[in-house]
């Protein structure tokens, strides 16, 4: 798969994850130890009203499922004898929103979709893909959205 195959509107459903209290507390203890992410009593007293995941836990889970999905797609492409996709470093993400908290027991379903694409002006062997990443809970409420960009290898010129 090359940049030329990555078309606007392509959507990947990359899987779901159910957040347990133990996981929420473990992630937050390491990376985001604010009381409402590590202490159920403190969380009840907070604006959130209950223990909820760090927003970065919600987002890192998207990344993990995304990488697992891309690894699988790469394996499938190799097994089918086609070209495996080549990715360059990501320049960043933007417009990230956490519209609702992720509470203990919530199941979040994740996806990404190509919303823009352009050829790199300075590096002709690369294209730049802009995607929209999303996570929705079991009630179909959005809990995460952001845009990001990545470099993808172009079809070699024969």
């Amino acid at each position, binding site marked *: 798969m090359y940049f030329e195959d990555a078309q606007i509107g392509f959507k990947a459903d990359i899987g779901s994850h159910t957040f347990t209290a133990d996981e929420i507390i473990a992630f937050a203890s*390491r*990376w*985001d*130890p*604010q*009381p*409402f992410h590590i202490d159920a009593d403190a969380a009840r007293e*907070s*604006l*959130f009203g209950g223990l909820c995941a*760090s*927003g*970065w836990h919600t*987002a*890192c*889970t998207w*990344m*993990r499922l995304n*990488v*697992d999905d891309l*690894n699988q797609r790469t394996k499938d492409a190799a097994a089918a004898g086609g070209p495996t996709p080549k990715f*360059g*470093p*990501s*320049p*960043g*993400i*933007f*417009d*990230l*929103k*956490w519209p609702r908290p992720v509470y203990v027991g919530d199941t979040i379903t994740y996806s990404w979709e190509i919303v823009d694409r352009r050829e790199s002006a300075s590096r002709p062997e690369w294209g730049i893909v802009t995607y929209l990443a999303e996570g929705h809970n079991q009630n179909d409420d959005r809990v995460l959205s*952001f845009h990001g960009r990545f470099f993808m290898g172009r079809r070699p010129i024969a």
Partner: protein
Amino acid sequence: MIGSTRKAFEDFTPGDSVVFHRTRVSKEDIVDFAADWDPQPMHLDEEAGKASILGGLTGSGWHMICLLMRGMCDGFLIDSTSAGSPGVDDVRWLRPLRPGDDLSIRYTVLDARVSNSRPGIGIVRFRFEMTNQNDETIMVVENPIMFGRRQHAEAAS
């Protein structure tokens, strides 16, 4: 009277610029993070890193974000009236995170305003810069954080 000494909305003035955290990142830190959250070869394996565009083992961009988040917690957030963040405007990964990096993290206050809908809360918009030992900025993040206002916190305590 913890409420009177914690950092509150009033303690952030546009133009403030403060290095609030320093941390060192080892190869093990980079590989451990990547194994959990971003298991791409260039974050897990020295040889795969050398073969990549960045020419060596590099940390995940998400690792940089998590290092920032932890630095914010230790640097000023835990001991504050923080009420969380509605989102992040922009994360730019400018240079790779490498094993052995000594990182400094700075905030600059871009603006600060009282919430229209919740007068007990103020919204502070920050630019965060993560810089390595060679004085190279490796990541810039801009995002708002909500803080309780001091007079309201004292009235409530």
